[in-house]
């Protein structure tokens, strides 16, 4: 009977092939378009060129947008790490009663779409005591909330897998203070898990468009905003940008996958 066979039948194979073609076709089209000199009414372009990539790299706005994206993402993720690490540690180890409440807080960014969050942020900070609308500060705050679920889950899962509660108790019994236990015992042990959630958060922020466009669209250009503006000017150039952006995400997710496997192996082995 087919139940015990691990090899999939041709029906499943062709279905998966169809799915992959469907999912990869838009990507492939962007890829080909980025290298095409002219592409009209044929399955493959008539002639190829690297000119679009050259043009992209020569555009000052591209490098500027790339840097803006990079430093905004790095600052937000670093801030999130600095804030979330101690907070999640304290709640998981010392105040487990608060976990239910935390779960509610953490699921909110999923349930509140970007547009809605932007509306609230604009109204709260366009006037009043903290007028930071349109600046990088409001964006970093918004980014902090976007990656909140990933950071919380990542840190909490790693704390649970290394049995942080028991580790801390042993460290304290051996005479370590709370701070000392946290820095010298817990942090080194959960490091791989933290790197994973950091990279994941980074790739999420790198693709962020809605909040960036609505909060600071006119003033700060990230790579997504730059891409959006180029789409209407030159299609080929825009696909070169999209492809380089996507390659970056691809590399990130491959590292993530490798790390995830390593962490899992380390745990089960």
């Amino acid at each position, binding site marked *: 009977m087919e139940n015990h066979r691990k090899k999939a039948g041709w029906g*499943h194979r062709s279905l998966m092939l169809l799915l992959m073609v469907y999912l990869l076709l838009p990507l492939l089209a962007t890829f080909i378009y980025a290298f095409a000199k002219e592409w009209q009414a044929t*399955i493959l372009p008539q002639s190829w060129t690297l000119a679009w990539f050259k043009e992209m790299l020569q555009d000052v706005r591209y490098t500027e947008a790339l840097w803006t994206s990079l430093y905004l993402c790095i600052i937000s993720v670093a801030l999130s790490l600095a*804030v979330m690490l101690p907070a999640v540690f304290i709640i998981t180890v010392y105040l487990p009663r608060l976990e239910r409440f935390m779960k509610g807080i953490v699921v909110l960014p999923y349930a509140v779409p970007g*547009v*809605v969050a932007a509306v609230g942020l604009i109204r709260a900070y366009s006037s009043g005591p903290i007028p930071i609308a349109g600046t990088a500060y409001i964006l970093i705050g918004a980014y902090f909330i976007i990656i909140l679920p990933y950071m919380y889950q990542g840190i909490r899962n790693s704390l649970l897998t290394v049995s942080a509660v028991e580790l801390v108790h042993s460290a304290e019994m051996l005479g370590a203070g709370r701070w000392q236990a946290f820095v010298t015992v817990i942090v080194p042990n959960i490091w791989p898990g933290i790197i994973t959630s950091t990279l994941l958060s980074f790739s999420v922020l790198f*693709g962020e468009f*809605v909040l960036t466009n*609505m909060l600071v669209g006119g003033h700060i250009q990230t790579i997504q905003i730059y891409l959006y503006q180029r789409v209407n000017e030159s*299609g080929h150039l825009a696909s070169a940008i999209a492809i380089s952006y996507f390659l970056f995400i691809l590399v990130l997710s491959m590292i993530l996958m490798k790390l995830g496997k390593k962490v899992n192996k380390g745990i089960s082995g």
Partner: protein
Amino acid sequence: MKHSHRWFLLGLVPFVVMIVLFQLAPILSMLTGSISQGNGSGFTLDYYSRIIHSEFYLKAIKNSLLISIFSSVIGIVAGLICAYSITRFSPKMRDRLLMLSNMTSNFAGVPLAFAYIILLGSNGVFTLLFKQWGWSVFADFNLYSWAGLVLVYVYFQVPLALLLLYPSFYGIREQWKEAASLLGASKWQFWRTIGLPILTPAVFGTLGILFANGMGAYATAYALVGGNYNLLAVRIGSLVAGDVVNEPQLGNALAVILALSTLLAVYLNHKMTQRSKMLQSGFTSKNTRSLRIFPKLKSSAVKEEL
């Protein structure tokens, strides 16, 4: 031990400050903004009643609801079939397929809209090819219309549905299939009476996530049709941060409506997850390893379509 070192609670202060400033305050501000008069004081339900009496905004709500329901139902059907198919492959192949799906679920928003413009836009590769080959069936297709939007929405719903659904197929054990077939049940009977009922909570839960995802999707529609197609998210965007800032209060009220719909959908997901956990709690932890990898895939896929 606990009473002597209260100072460690200080570690929570930055977290609380960030949550209050950037999560709670904006939501509160939006709520009060939707019910206070233009000058900032005084209670009014004027904006809501204007929305209810405006054909334009009702149409936007209706369009958003329809496109979310359509795209999530199509997404879930395709996702279910593909998720079942994926469990039939060897673990190695399965992981590769999942990685590809996960990767493409990152492909959303502006780049996705753009890719579809290359393929099927007014000068798209396929549009011109079909014209050349004389396939008139596709001549009426317009990417910048309802059909085009549904097509693009379905694209980002399918991998999400697949990634969320496939683990629940591991809750259906091979032994049950064998037992059912020994007792004389056909394949169809097995799925109708045992398989699908077990999957039901997961299906409805995923439907909630997909629906919320569709309602909140802004970037794709914005990049594809700009302000030309009447969707709730697009309306809110142009009311609040558009080129002509005319009525932010109305935008607040619309945003509250949108948030209510997505909150409800995510709540449905939450309830359904609880139920499916209850159903699955009796099963062995044979698949813990594959499930442990899964949360990472899932978390990156669940993110709002950006």
